[in-house]
């Protein structure tokens, strides 16, 4: 029994990581109908900045804050320099540009920081163990669950309780009407990229801490998994994305053990995606379809 709880806990950790990453994608898709593949590069960038700044300053906290700041700016820059000029074209044009940016950034990491990746000079957290009701968990795993829960709750409060947040949701559901009510649609877009990128930075930083390792291609696997998640969640639905993230995390956690001998972990993720879409073509939340 403890074993199955252990697996569930692992699934939960995976799920929270996926959620941090996928929320940004969903936000962009909901607002602009662009599949923001380069979001994975923002996530990897966040991981690199965390390691570099932490090693330079000796403080992991400063590293994480620097990563969040840098990625927020990067996300907004990507919108301004890459997507905005392409908004008049069909969405696949922006998507192709996005894939291009991901490839360029991956190679950029390789050239700038080396093929072999980087490591924290000092990172005691992944090996700090805690016994919680018979489960052995490490500090980073706890941080992943706690921080992603806090961030997503704050995000939910922000979108439902604040003026800017409500304006944002209004823009997502109907940009023209929102604009006529005085919401600045352009500001909303920047806000969108800023928040999504900050969450991706946090995700990247936490994974860097967990693995004690960042590498040029670290965004790639997460990129297509996050795409699967937003499709699963019913494109553009925040709630659906969260459910899909957790569902995928758990499926992978159990799947690796029970069908892992025949299928690799990514294949399990996509099999799950196909299975869900066969039963619910509108995705798990199903509030809206693309």
């Amino acid at each position, binding site marked *: 029994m403890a074993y199955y709880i252990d697996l569930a806990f692992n699934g939960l950790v995976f799920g929270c990581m996926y959620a941090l990453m996928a929320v940004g994608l969903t936000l962009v898709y909901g607002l602009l109908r662009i599949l923001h593949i380069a979001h994975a590069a923002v996530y990897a960038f966040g991981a690199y900045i965390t390691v570099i700044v932490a090693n330079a300053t000796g403080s992991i906290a400063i590293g994480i804050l620097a990563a969040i700041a840098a990625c927020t700016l990067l996300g907004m820059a990507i919108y301004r320099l890459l997507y905005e000029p392409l908004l008049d074209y069909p969405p696949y044009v922006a998507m192709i540009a996005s894939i291009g940016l991901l490839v360029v950034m991956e190679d950029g990491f390789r050239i700038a920081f080396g093929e072999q990746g980087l490591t924290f000079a000092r990172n005691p957290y*992944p090996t700090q163990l805690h016994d919680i009701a018979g489960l052995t968990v490490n500090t980073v795993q706890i941080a992943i669950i706690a921080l992603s829960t806090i961030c997503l709750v704050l995000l939910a409060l922000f979108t439902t309780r604040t003026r800017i947040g409500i304006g944002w949701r209004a823009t997502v559901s109907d940009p023209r009407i929102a604009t006529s009510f005085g919401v600045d649609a352009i500001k909303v877009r920047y806000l969108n990229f800023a928040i999504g990128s900050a969450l991706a930075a946090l995700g990247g930083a936490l994974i860097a801490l967990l693995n*004690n390792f960042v590498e040029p291609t670290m965004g790639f696997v997460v990129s297509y998994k996050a795409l699967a998640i937003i499709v699963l969640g019913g494109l553009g639905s925040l709630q659906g994305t969260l459910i899909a993230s957790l569902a995928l995390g758990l499926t992978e956690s159990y799947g690796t053990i029970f069908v892992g001998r025949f299928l690799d972990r990514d294949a399990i993720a996509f099999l799950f995606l196909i299975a869900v879409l066969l039963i619910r073509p509108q995705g798990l939340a199903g509030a809206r379809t693309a």
Partner: protein
Amino acid sequence: MRTKLVCSRLGTLAACLLLIAATSPASAQIKLGFQAPLTGPAATDGKSAKIAADMAVEKINAAGVLGQKIELITYDDQAKTEEAVFTANKLAGQDGVKFAVSGSYSASGRAAAPIFQQAGVPFISAYGVHPDITRAGNDVFRGVHLGPPQGRAAAKFIGDNLGLKRVSIVTMDNDYGQATLEGFKSAVDQFGIKVLGEYSYSLKDRQFGSIVASVKRDNPDVVYVTGYFFTAAPLVTQLRSAGIQAPIVGSQAFDAQKLIEIAGSAVEGVYIVGGLNRDRDMPELKEYLAQFQKRAGYAGENVGATVYSAVRLMADAITRAGTPDPAKARDALAATKNFPHLAGELVSFNPLREINMPMNVNVVKDGQFRHYAWIDDLKLLAPPTE
């Protein structure tokens, strides 16, 4: 008129010089083709391979081979099949090399082998582990242990040397991981080992929570893991983070300094079957490691050592043959006895031109790879013969 005369005299002079250069034995060159992944995802290993090959050529040329010098002609194969085919054709055709060494991965070695075989160019794949490479024909040799002997050596190490019997296995799901696993499983009965659980992961995975939970449930005496440093470091860290204290035995590809850099204290005490014995009392190895560190800026590893030895071995075979004739040098290569390979004494090649060589086991101690044991049962380590 005057200019014309000067030109023609200069031309004659140049022609004479060329003639002298071509006939003078002291500066004659033996062309050695070399392929390595200098760019792309495998570029780290490519860099090590190139540095090692250059070092070997310099060492050889300091003394000369049959009074001649080796000229290394290098191409980047990006560890890709199509690039390997292209550059192998270029080497064998346009460049007219008579000998070749691959400092690249299995896929490109496997693609290049038939081309060199066809051209009658003796070819050594320094560290490519796909079994089909040497099956290309009798000109193709390999300078590293195949997966199955590595797996059998690990079984012997666990069962005999460590005396542990209950094992959980975690393997990567590529050809090399599977081949090593087959070797390991073929020898478990012989060493009284009981396999409690068998898990596999993809090379893209960095999170092994479910596997770790399962290994914990198995509660084994020892965990046998195959992987590269970038999967092994997080995997070992996560096994230790889950409170699993059992010894961990890793495969050859663990043997990279980066493993220790990433996983730090978590890899202390991890054994590596097939790692490079850096403590060996061999002046050439010591000199190689010191030089390599200086040139590369990082510590020498298996990849570089096997490439260095492959180039040295080729020159050694030419010397033994007494002629740079490829067919005769090939026969000398096949007849190699007790060659001082940097990774161990290369006793001989078997009929499939695979090495008979003892295997080293390292242990990570105080952040260093240290020699722990030799597995020298050559019968157990016997590579396939067909």
